């Protein structure tokens, strides 16, 4: 990773995307202090991530988790909640609540070796939520979950978003991220290749104008008639709903001698945005 800097607003669901090897998992692991940065530091709410206390407000669901199969569902929640500092009396109350939340109440006393992949994923989510974190980091949270389970996870996460929990989702399932996240960033070769609001990036059919980064005032003026603006590596992508608006913006930019890189018709799904970004 090189100079990765992301702004994630409190209480939003943020998606981190990228091709294999882009550095998504390394980024998350650095935040969690599972990986030590070769240079620089990772801070969580202003505290050094390598300090255990800095990780207290985090709930984490790893990708390819391997929960010990000797646990029952309730036993696993009890163990990880205890490690997160939840005292015994609160655990007694919270465990049934969280099993209920993820639809596993009936499975509380069953060894998790008998759980399906989807059930393990939901149990993992309960584990990440049980100590009431203010930031939730989920690595491929719906991987292996059936459509009904996925909808359930989305609903649960939506509920926590409403309560002001910041949710950071690391995923390669673009459709899932598109449905779930309010903002996304695309990592490519260890750098942030694109970041923006989901509704801006997937503005639908229209025209995308790519220009060398204009002065801020001009960018804001053009942004006024565009549906979205995304900044990446010294370039800015403006999305326009019509050819007329795109031409008007080009006139404005050329008048200020801004360099135009491209004007192209678009039908933006997140997948298209993703492919365009990583192929550049």
């Amino acid at each position, binding site marked *: 990773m090189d100079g990765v800097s992301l702004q994630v607003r409190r209480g939003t669901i943020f998606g981190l995307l990228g091709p294999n090897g882009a550095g998504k998992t390394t980024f998350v692991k650095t935040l969690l202090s599972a990986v030590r940065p070769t240079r620089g530091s990772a801070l969580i709410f202003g505290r050094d991530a390598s300090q255990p206390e800095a990780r207290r407000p985090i709930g984490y669901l*790893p990708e390819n988790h391997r929960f010990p199969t000797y646990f029952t569902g309730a036993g696993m929640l009890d163990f*990880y909640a205890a490690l997160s500092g939840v005292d015994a009396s609160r655990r007694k109350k919270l465990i049934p609540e969280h099993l209920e939340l993820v639809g596993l109440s009936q499975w509380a006393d069953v060894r998790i070796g008998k759980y399906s992949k989807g059930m393990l994923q939901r149990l993992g989510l309960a584990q990440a939520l049980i100590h009431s974190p203010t930031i939730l980091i989920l690595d491929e949270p719906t991987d292996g979950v059936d459509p009904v389970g996925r909808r359930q996870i989305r609903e649960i996460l939506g509920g926590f978003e409403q309560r002001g929990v910041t949710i950071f989702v690391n995923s390669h399932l673009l459709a899932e991220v598109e449905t779930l996240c309010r903002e996304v960033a695309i990592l490519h070769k260890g750098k942030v290749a694109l970041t923006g609001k989901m509704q801006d990036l997937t503005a639908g059919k229209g025209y995308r104008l790519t220009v060398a980064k204009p002065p801020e005032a001009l960018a804001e003026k053009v942004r006024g008639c565009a549906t979205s603006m995304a900044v990446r590596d010294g370039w800015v992508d403006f999305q326009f709903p019509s050819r007329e608006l795109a031409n008007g913006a080009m006139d404005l930019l050329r008048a200020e001698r801004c360099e135009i890189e491209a004007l192209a018709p678009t039908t933006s799904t997140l997948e298209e945005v993703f492919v365009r970004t990583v192929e550049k």
Partner: protein
Amino acid sequence: MVTLALIRDTFREALARKIFWGLFALSTLMILFFLFLLRIDIVSGATATITLFGRQTNANPDVDRMVRGVYGAIATFLYTFGMFLAVFASSGLIPSVLEPGRIELLVSKPLSRTHILLGRYAGNVLVVFLNSAYLVIGVWAILGVKTGIWSPVFLIAIATTTFIFAVLLAVVVLIGVLSDSAALSTMVTVALMIVSPILAQTSLMMRLLSSEWSRNLWKTLYYSLPKVYELGKMTLDAIQSRTFAGFTPIWTSALFGAVMLGAALAIFARRDF
């Protein structure tokens, strides 16, 4: 609370892997074996033996020697076969916690890596402590009830067995953290146990070795490696009321264990997962 959770987790895993139950069953077999032997002796009707287990035999010095002999046999069993079993059984408990998909979640929790590893270590030591306590106290109680001889010195075997296991476990932990391999951890630790009685022949070797450097090498190895054999012998001497020559095996072994554990903690704290 966190430490307790880590210890309980180690216990849970030891139970699930049948490690605890395996050691427990073996200890039970040993206890039943002595119970059975004593009964056989009684049933056999030999006059001396019947007298041996009657209350009037309390003052009989032969009974005392016999009881100490049994204590010695149990202590020897614990230090040889029991220790091998404990090392084999425990070697998987460290690498298992380092498995990808498990360790990331553990280190993401608000506790230090030192805490994670020490919790695991303590849980593992406790598993062996409880098993050796069960065996020693079981045999001690059976012999005490049957013979009326309650020699508390035998109970020292619980402490010394646990101590030497703790030292050897530090090696298991270090190799486990370095290699993630239960097999390699076991091999290295067992090698240390095997080499221990050989290194203990220091005074003989000082006479046999011709060059100064080889004598120094031998002495270096002797003083730096854990003295499983000598600790076992010290326990045996204590049980059988014999004198032993100094506490060097205890403190050098403790120092070795502390260095191994310290190195394991330092490496674990710097590893990427």
